[in-house]
Structures are given as C-alpha cells and as structure tokens.
C-alpha cells in the first residue's frame, strides 16, 4: 500500500499532462463538429469514396455515421489516435518501474526495504491502472463538457463508456510492458516491444477485414475486442476478457521478475 500511494503520487503530474493533451484533442474535435455537421453529406460521401482498407485504418468501421457526434468522435479520436497514444502512458510507466529503475540505479535503494519483488510489480501496475482512470476522467470531462456547452447532443453515460473502454486496452499493453520490463534489463526494450506490438495489432485488426490471411489473426489483437463504445456502448465480455489477459501478463511479469537477477 505505501508503494502504491508513492507511485500514484509520482504519476500525478503525468496524469495531468496526459489528460490535458488528449483532452484538448477531444475538445478541438467536439468544437469542430458543428462545422462538419453542416457539411455532413459531403463528409459521408468523401468517406464512402475511400477504399475500405483506408476507412478501417482510420478507425471508421462499417456503419459509422460521421454526421453524429458519436460517429465523428469515433473516427477522429476514440477508434484511432486516442487508444494508440494513451497506451503509451502505461507502457512508459511500466518500462520505467523495473528496467528503468534498474538503469537509473534506483532499484537496490528501494529493494533494500523489506518489499517482496512481486509487490513492486503489482504496486506499480495498480498505481498505473488507477492513474489511467484519472487520465480517462479528464479526457471524458474535456469531451462531454464542451459538447454540453455547445448544445451538442452527447450523453454523459456514453462518453463515460467511451473513455472507460480504453482502460483494458491500455492496461493490457501496460502489462505487456511490465513483462518486458521484468524480463529485460533495458528500458528501451520494454518500450519498443509493446509499442511495436500495439501498432502491429492495430494494423492487423484494421486490415484484417479486407486482407486475406489476416482475418484469422484479428481475434488475437486487442483492437478486435475494443469495438466502438462511443457508438455502441461497452462490450462487457470483451472488457472483462482483455482485463483478464492483462492480469495474466501481470502474473507472468511478477514470476519473471522474481526469478531474475537485478543488475548484472
């Protein structure tokens, strides 16, 4: 518990910065919606003219209606840039927690205390998962409040579902980074590997609809289970499934970290 509170406190500034950065992106997106709404038919025609591969790459799934605020937000942020960007918050935090601390020389000061190694893994993970909720809360506020102020019909519940839906996706990438951080001694690997996996999963899922051979791989990507909560609400079985996968990776991280040498 002291470690959890300690990490949470250290992450407070990052939470504000990430929340504000992504929040501003959504604020601008919402603010630009009325202008887009006036040209809605032109936009829908333009999107229809794109090949399906391109539409999928930009997070515009079949049935996404850009003339609604939900569809517009899905295409502009929630199904594309927001999860891809936000996943790097837990990736960076987890990479820094073990491999980064080892590189900085901060590990043996901390582990000189009577702290089991698994607590270091779990404490950092839990603090990052809670910090992530903080970022999502700021993001949700910066999405819903401007819509409310501009009389755009966006429900608070649906906004909450949209931001919450990013949590298991980001947490699972954070768990993968924690596993890499536990296995390798270098922070760069603990960032690069999950980062590459994240991008690869995005492409496999986006192109899997149209590229033969990728279809079977889609269920193994986190984006396949992500859906579009801003349009359709949270798919709770997928939410729970991805969270469980994250916990499995966390368990592996704790086991790996327990077995390996610190400093070699």
């Amino acid at each position: 518990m002291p470690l959890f509170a300690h990490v949470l406190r250290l992450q407070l500034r990052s939470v504000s910065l990430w929340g504000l950065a992504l929040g501003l992106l959504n604020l601008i997106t919402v603010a630009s919606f009325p202008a887009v709404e006036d040209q809605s038919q032109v936009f829908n025609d333009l999107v229809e003219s794109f090949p399906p591969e391109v539409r999928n790459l930009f997070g515009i799934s079949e049935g996404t209606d850009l003339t609604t605020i939900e569809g517009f937000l899905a295409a502009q942020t929630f199904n594309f840039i927001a999860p891809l960007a936000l996943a790097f918050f837990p990736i960076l935090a987890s990479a820094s927690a073990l491999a980064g601390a080892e590189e900085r020389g901060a590990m043996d000061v901390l582990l000189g205390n009577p702290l089991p190694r698994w607590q270091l893994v779990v404490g950092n993970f839990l603090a990052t998962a809670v910090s992530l909720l903080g970022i999502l809360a700021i993001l949700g506020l910066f999405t819903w409040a401007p819509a409310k102020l501009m009389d755009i019909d966006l429900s608070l519940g649906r906004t909450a579902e949209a931001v919450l839906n990013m949590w298991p996706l980001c947490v699972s990438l954070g768990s993968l980074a924690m596993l890499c951080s536990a296995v390798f001694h270098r922070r760069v690997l603990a960032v690069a590997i999950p980062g590459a996996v994240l991008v690869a999963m995005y492409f496999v899922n986006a192109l899997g609809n149209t590229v033969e051979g990728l279809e079977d791989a889609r269920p193994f990507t986190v984006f396949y289970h992500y859906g579009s909560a801003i349009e359709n609400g949270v798919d709770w079985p997928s939410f729970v499934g991805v969270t469980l996968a994250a916990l499995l990776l966390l368990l592996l991280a704790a086991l790996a970290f327990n077995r390996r040498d610190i400093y070699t």
Partner: protein
Amino acid sequence: MDAVIRTEGLTKTYGRRSRGVEDVNLEVNEGEVFGFLGPNGAGKTTTIRTLLNFLHPTGGRAEVFGMDSRRESVAIRERVGNLPGEFSLEDRMTGERLLRFFARLRGVEDLSYAHELAGRLGADLRRPMRRLSRGNKQKIGLILAMFHRPPLLILDEPTGGLDPLVQEEFLEIIAETKAEGRTIFFSSHVLSEVERVSDRVGIIRDGRLVTVETTDALVNKSFRHVSLTFAEPVDAGPFAALPGVEELKSDGANITFTLHDNLDEVVKLAAKGRLVGMDYERPSLEEIFLAYYVHEGEVEER
C-alpha cells in the same frame, strides 16, 4: 559469538566472460565492524547484492541472521539497513518525503533518529534530490540505511563523495552503532577509514576472498619500513643480501628498505656500524592491501 553473515562457497558468475565472485567463505560476527576491501571490480558489490538477493548465487549459499539469502530475503531485509555503492533517488522528491516513504514501508513511526542523523551529517532533507550534490545525496542514502536502527548495516562505499568533516562524523556514528552491539559490514577502498573502525578485514581480489584477518593482526604480521642512519657512509650490500630485505635504497650513510620477518639479523648487522638513527614503521593498511595485490599477481604470473 553468532555469525550474522555466513557464506559457504558463494559463487556468482555472469556468463563466461564476467567473473563475479567465486567460492567465497565468509563469516561476520554479531557486534563487529567488518571491512570488506578490494578495488573496483573485485567482487565487493556482487557479494553484497547476493547477500540481499538482488543477485542469485550460481553456487554455494549465503545466510544472514541464519536465514537463507534467497528464500528468506524479505525477512533478512527487515533487519538490514543497506546503502548501495551507486544509487539514484527520485529526482523530484525531497529527502523528508523519501524518508517518510521508507518509514511507511518499514512500519517505522518515530523519525527522531533520522532527524538526528540528518543534523549530524549536515543533510538537507527539504531540497529535492535533483538539487543535491553527490555528497549530499550520499548523506540521504546513509540516513535511509540507518534511520530504523537495524541490527545489521550493509554499506557499500559509505564515505564516497563525503567531505572530510562529514566522513569523521560518519565514522563516529559507526563507532556508536558498534557500541550498541549492532553489526556493520562495509566495503571500501579507502583503507585509512577501514583501519580506523574495523575489527576485522576481508580482502577480495578478482572475485576471490584472499584473506580475512583482524585488522591488528593483518598490520602486525606484515612488513615494516626500516630506515637506518649511520655516522659515516656504509656498504649497503650486506643489508641487501639479508633474507627478508626488499626495495633497498642507499644514500651513503642512509639506508632504507622494507623488511619481512628478519629484524634480529638486521639489528645485529646494523650494530657493526655506528648507528645514529633508526626508524621502524608499520605500513598503512593501504600498503598492505597493495602488497596483497602485487604478490598475489606475481604468484599467478609465475
């Protein structure tokens, strides 16, 4: 006296190219100050990290307070204060916040001793780590290692970066810690401080423990610096020919050399001339330490 630290054949290798430590057999008794000597890369830090389970031994075993270093590491660390050789602390945190965090991890509520240590060492607990010099960070590291009054202190190069006055205060604190019956195991390559406070000394070379002696015994049984001054110039040849005489230098009436275990013959030979001055000095621990390195190296080369 019970052994607080005991290693049996402790070995840690890092693959084929890097040695670590090999077959280290060591006992550190309760209440003693044990100086662990060796140059950088000799294996001091590897030994310490293995004792604290940061590194897992590839052979042999280590016990601290009779507990296995691997299986009972958390229980061991409850009773140990550790200062790593090279460390960093959270840049944005002040010493006070770090101290309170460590106190919560250890369930310690009374920080009066920590503040007393901070006062004695001149540590500023209010400034963030990024604004502290290496020496001032070292002070914070020492406080974090000692504030909970552990029965065993494991300190890796504790005086690194400290100015001479603070080093003096630190050695005073070590003496008080010993007087309380607590045990101190510390590595250093500053031999003068080891000589001052250690009851026993272990010398590690290329990963192997080459000797463990009481500090006095180590100094007493080693060579001596001898300087003879005669009333008139003398022939240095007979002195150079005596067994145990090394590094002889002659300047007419003055002869200096190092002597290993042959004082009687030297005195008898010197008495044949008109001796007007004689110095007979024991070497510093530093010279003994270097001699261990030079002689061991020569043996290996042969």
